[in-house]
């Protein structure tokens, strides 16, 4: 008997403790969990941590405002998970977050992880905003939960195609891609943009992410004498490729997407990287609406510089909180339609979503390697 009663008390205590920890703070505020996922370990963990910090600043700032939703004071809490940039791990942590009663998620960082995870969020009705996944597929699965605050590869491919033909004056163009979801997607969009802009595709060549020897395809390309070579892929291949282009005596311009607009590219390509063009979604930090201010704030808190996408993670988090405020509800089902109708002045610019959840009028910036550094050239699109 005694044992039975103590067991019941134990269960009751558990329930009470559970409720207290999960839904309310000590001062009676309702706890609202927002998930964040990015690679916090592994080779691009610096970017994942950067995103996490962006989201963290947003959550802290929102809490300082003492927001009240549906008459109840709320306290936001960021539950951050590590997907190791691994698609399988991404689905595991996505499920874990869904099970921890999050009302929305900011993430993931990579396209490869964002896409499989988006199915889990969609099935559970959890609104998702990726700060940095650019693959087209993510928002083309007809998931009303999927959003992003960065221009996608379709927009990027178009801008790059137009730029190649109209600004750089390239007529004959050779395209290489690495057969990855990102590289192939970007190259496809680039190709159709070239065709509609009146350029000519001389050849389409392929490689893969395990290769470092591109001499055979580059030699073929050299025989066609293109004005420009476009590469859809990452910096690890683009670096050695650039060296081989110069060694073979090719004089064509080199253009690539955001996978190449990195410091690593410069390290790998060395002096041969000079003159290469690459794009990156969004504006350079200094030209963002609140870029300088955010940089100062970030540095003050973490005593480190922003790596890459932190401002996007910050905006994504605030866009989500903003939608809850307008809906006057933290219930995902209720605030999701409000999220789709966002019009928010973010640090990275004005944020609105189209019917797919893509950023409306997302801008693309172009950079060129000058004296061993990526130099900002111009921004195309956006600010409409």
């Amino acid at each position, binding site marked *: 008997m005694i044992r039975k009663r103590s067991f019941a008390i134990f269960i009751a205590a558990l329930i009470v403790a559970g409720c207290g920890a999960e839904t309310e703070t000590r001062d009676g505020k309702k706890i609202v969990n927002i998930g964040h996922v990015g690679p916090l370990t*592994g*080779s691009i963990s610096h970017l994942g941590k950067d995103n996490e910090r962006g989201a963290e600043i947003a959550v802290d700032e929102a809490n300082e405002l003492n927001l009240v939703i549906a008459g109840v004071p709320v306290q936001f809490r960021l539950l951050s998970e590590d997907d190791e940039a691994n698609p399988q791990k991404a689905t595991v942590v996505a499920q874990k977050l869904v099970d921890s009663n999050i009302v929305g998620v900011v993430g993931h960082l990579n396209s490869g992880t964002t896409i499989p995870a988006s199915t889990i969020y969609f099935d559970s009705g959890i609104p998702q905003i990726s700060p940095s996944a650019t693959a087209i597929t993510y928002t083309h699965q007809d998931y009303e939960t999927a959003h992003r605050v960065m221009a996608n590869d379709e927009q990027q491919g178009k801008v790059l195609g137009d730029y190649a033909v109209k600004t750089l004056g390239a007529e004959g163009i050779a395209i290489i891609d690495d*057969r990855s979801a990102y590289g192939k997607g970007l190259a496809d969009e680039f190709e159709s943009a070239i065709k509609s802009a009146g350029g000519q595709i001389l*050849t*389409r*060549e*392929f*490689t*893969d992410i*395990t*290769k*470092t*020897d591109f*001499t*055979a*395809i580059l*030699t*073929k390309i*050299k*025989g066609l004498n293109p004005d420009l070579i476009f590469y859809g892929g990452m910096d*690890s291949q683009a*670096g*050695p490729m650039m*060296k*081989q282009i110069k*060694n*073979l*005596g090719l004089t064509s311009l080199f253009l690539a997407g955001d996978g190449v607009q990195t410091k*690593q590219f410069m*390290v*790998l390509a*060395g*002096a041969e990287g000079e003159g290469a063009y690459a794009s990156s979604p969004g504006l350079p930090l200094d030209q963002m609406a609140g870029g300088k201010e955010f940089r100062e704030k970030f540095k003050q808190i973490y005593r480190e510089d922003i790596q890459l996408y932190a401002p996007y993670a910050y905006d994504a988090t605030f866009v989500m909180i903003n939608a809850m405020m307008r809906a006057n509800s933290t219930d995902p089902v209720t605030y999701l339609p409000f999220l789709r109708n966002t019009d928010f002045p973010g640090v990275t610019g004005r944020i609105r979503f189209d019917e797919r959840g893509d950023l409306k009028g997302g801008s693309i910036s172009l950079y060129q390697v000058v004296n061993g550094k990526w130099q900002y050239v111009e921004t195309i699109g956006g600010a409409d």
Partner: protein
Amino acid sequence: MDIFAQQILNGLVLGSVYALVALGYTMVYGILGLINFAHGEVVMIGAMIALAVVSILLSAFPEMHPLLTILLAGVSAILVCMALAFLIERLAYRPLRNAPRLAPLITAIGISILLQNIAMIIWGRKYKTVPQIFPTETFELFGASITSVQIFIITISAVLMTGLLVIVHFTKLGRAMRATSESQRVAGLMGINVNKIISVTFMMGAGLAAVAGILIAGNYSVVHYSMGFMLGLKAFTAAVLGGIGNLGGAVLGGLLLGLIESIGAGYIGDLTGGFLGSHYQDVFAFVVLIVVLVFRPTGIMGERVSERA
């Protein structure tokens, strides 16, 4: 400029490296009948060690003559790889020498994975860049461009391969190696220290692999912990193509494979009217392998069993 000449040249550069690595496969197979799948990883370790030594030398003695820097890096890489190969053979393969053939094969695959992961832990997941020690000069040859590094690759490979053939065919050590490959038992009865010969064979293969690693690192300027895997498979293919166990065959197979890949990638699109693109580069190489094996199961030079080293 002549595109065809350029593709031939690309193929020769690629093929020379394949040949160097293929020799290691074929030597070990000739003696033990073992496919040493860890051989590709030895190439990677060689490149990594050379890069580490070069980096240290460049920061500690920036005034040092570039030739000396490369020489020191090369010697250390070769020594480390030889020691590594000795240890692999001693610890992993020798205890299994009388085991069923599948056991050492699976051990070899295990060693390959182990070495890759150790390298990943030590040197990280990122592609590492190789500092440029010599300024790359580009020359014109029969209408094709060739860099000083590529000339170096072809020359070094040719010298080493000739050297190896001379050792195997004209020295006492070579005779012992050939005898061991004929029959370990009989060679042992004739007073040959079979264990020593097998160790030496592994170490010679590893030395060549280390050089191949350095040449690749110098040519492409990047090294990565996974760089040895595909290269190992290609070199193994080259060895089989030429006739595994046959030294001349490994050289021929390596050069052929390089040429096939290069020409395949360059012309496959035009030959098939755009139906197949350059992503069939590897497929093309392996189809050639299959065709050769269907008509000549022993490989191109495989029948001269008596010359196995």
